[in-house]
């Protein structure tokens, strides 16, 4: 049986779990309603206490929706950060913190790190398995946009060759990220440094925007990419005259190469990445790492937080279910007299039980379904806020975990609903008629 379950594709397992969770309320309904059709009476009760019922459904929807939104958001954030690192197969840098280098290279959060020298870069770039070896040069900005020196080949790789205009052909041309407020043809003068520490007027060389990348869903959408030679020239690191157009890009002269904090390496084959990692992991010389693996390590640490969040969401749903049932008991007091009258007129106890259970189940089901909608809206809003603040495209869609959460809540609440229904039945009829 376990083998059969494990042999099922993931979607089939998810569907089976969803069906198992939803079939329980369906069986409960069949058992409770067997032989009775209390629909008209339930509709009348729903109409009679319309506002109270609506408030009850809204409370369930909000509490279910928050749990749904939180789980969807966590998954969206994980997928967004993984997507951002997708174009960065392998990074070679001077030995240090992989996390720091990943944040600098992938998420453009530069920090002071050691540089790789020209001969080492040349060795990486000329390795037979390397297709792209893009040096990075950080440190300048224009308004809030970091100015990053690299190669035209990397700009095309990063944008999947979706560049409006063209890539640079001269040392003082640039390609803007999708959300940089500069148009093709605009000129800009970079400031030295980033953020509050940026110093205007330090550099004298302007660059012209000649292309704009399509959105990549990464912080590079707000960056301006320039030839790495532009950064070297403006910082006086390249010596002598600016390079001629024919001298832009690799191969770089190892003697003139002033150093780079990181080289983004791309190979054609997955195995080659591992071979290159082995080749360029050298004690006290270079470290080579996969940003995806660093992120996976981070997710593993975050996994505990995720687990805590999931448990919190489950506990919250449990509390919501308990509150709903308690609320229903209180709600029943509103029509205690009507229930007692039904029983006094000779309605069988099971019919009364069916009415009370169906009424509660209708409220819970409506709240749970609306909760999915609230969760979707909450996830959308949170995604937009996170995307705006981090420049990482976060798309939080509802998936199987959210459906399981809602179905689980529906399952538990409708089963436990039988308790308040029986409680109402046990109340004395005469006392109820006098209520």
């Amino acid at each position, binding site marked *: 049986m376990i*083998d059969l379950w*494990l042999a099922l594709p993931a979607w089939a397992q998810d569907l089976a779990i969803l069906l198992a969770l939803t079939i329980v309320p369906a069986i409960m309904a069949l058992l409770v309603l067997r032989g009775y059709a209390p629909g008209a009476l339930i509709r009348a009760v729903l109409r009679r206490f319309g506002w109270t019922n609506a408030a009850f459904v809204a409370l369930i929807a909000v509490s279910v929706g928050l749990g749904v939104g939180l789980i969807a958001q966590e*998954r969206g954030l*994980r*997928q*967004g*950060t*993984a*997507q951002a*690192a*997708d174009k960065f197969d392998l990074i070679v840098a001077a030995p240090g913190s992989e996390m720091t280098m990943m944040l600098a290279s992938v998420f453009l959060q530069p920090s002071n790190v050691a540089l790789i020298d020209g001969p080492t870069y040349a060795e990486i770039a000329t390795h037979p398995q390397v297709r792209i070896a893009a040096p990075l040069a950080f440190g300048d900005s224009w308004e809030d946009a970091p100015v990053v020196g690299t190669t035209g080949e990397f700009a095309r790789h990063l944008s999947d060759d979706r560049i409006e205009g063209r890539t640079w052909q001269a040392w003082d041309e640039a390609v803007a990220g999708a959300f940089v407020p500069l148009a093709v043809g605009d000129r800009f003068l970079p400031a030295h440094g980033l953020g509050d520490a940026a110093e205007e007027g330090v550099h004298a060389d302007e660059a012209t925007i000649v292309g704009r990348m399509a959105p990549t869903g990464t912080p590079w959408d707000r960056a301006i990419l320039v030839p790495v030679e532009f950064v070297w020239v403006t910082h006086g690191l390249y010596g002598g005259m600016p390079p001629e157009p024919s001298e832009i890009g690799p191969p770089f002269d190892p003697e003139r190469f002033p150093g780079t904090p990181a080289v983004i390496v791309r190979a054609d*084959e*997955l*195995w080659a*990445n*591992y*071979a290159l*990692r*082995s*080749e360029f*992991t050298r004690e006290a010389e270079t470290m080579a790492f*996969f940003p*995806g*693996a660093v*992120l*996976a*390590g981070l*997710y*593993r640490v975050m996994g505990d937080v995720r687990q805590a969040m999931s448990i919190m969401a489950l506990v919250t749903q449990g509390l919501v279910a308990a509150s709903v049932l308690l609320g229903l008991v209180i709600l029943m007091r509103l029509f205690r007299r009507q229930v007692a009258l039904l029983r006094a007129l000779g309605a069988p106890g099971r019919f009364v039980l069916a009415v009370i259970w169906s009424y509660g189940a209708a409220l819970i089901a409506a709240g749970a379904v609306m909760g999915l909608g609230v969760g979707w809206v909450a996830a959308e809003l949170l995604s937009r806020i996170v995307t705006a603040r981090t420049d990482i495209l976060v798309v939080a869609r509802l998936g199987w975990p959210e459906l399981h959460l809602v179905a689980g809540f529906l399952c538990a609440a409708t089963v436990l609903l039988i308790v308040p229904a029986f409680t109402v039945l046990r109340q004395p009829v005469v006392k109820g008629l006098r209520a």
Partner: protein
Amino acid sequence: MRLATIVLAAALAPLAATAEDGHDDHLAELDGLRAVHAWTRATDATETLIFVEIQNEGEVAVTLEGAHADGLDATLVGFRLQDGSPVYEPVDAVPVAPGRELHLEPDGLAIRLTGLSTPLAEGEEMEMELVTSLGEIEIHVEVEAADAIAHSHAGHNH
């Protein structure tokens, strides 16, 4: 005091020898190619990942081509993130240059064994062979905790 030290040393000698023997299991060698600290995680699933550090101390490049394990399917696989979730994909043979190391480790390269019929419990051991361009190296795989991220002796020199 000195007598007590001698007696204690004599009493501990067999234990030390055993520990040394245990440590010998951590290393397998073939013509300068060393496989150190092979391990896997405790699991009751039908597949598992094997990790090991490979050190090429020879003069020529060696290619890791795969692995053999009795009655099990062994595949060299590489890690990547797909939509934020880890997946392992089959990988062709990987060369190791002279003087370099290739680490088969979590979130990286690994050997995937499929077809396990019994659970692997922490503390158990299993034997298998790495297939390389030099030939096959028999390695001794230790089963670590289900949530381990490294061999329990990782960092020890051999």
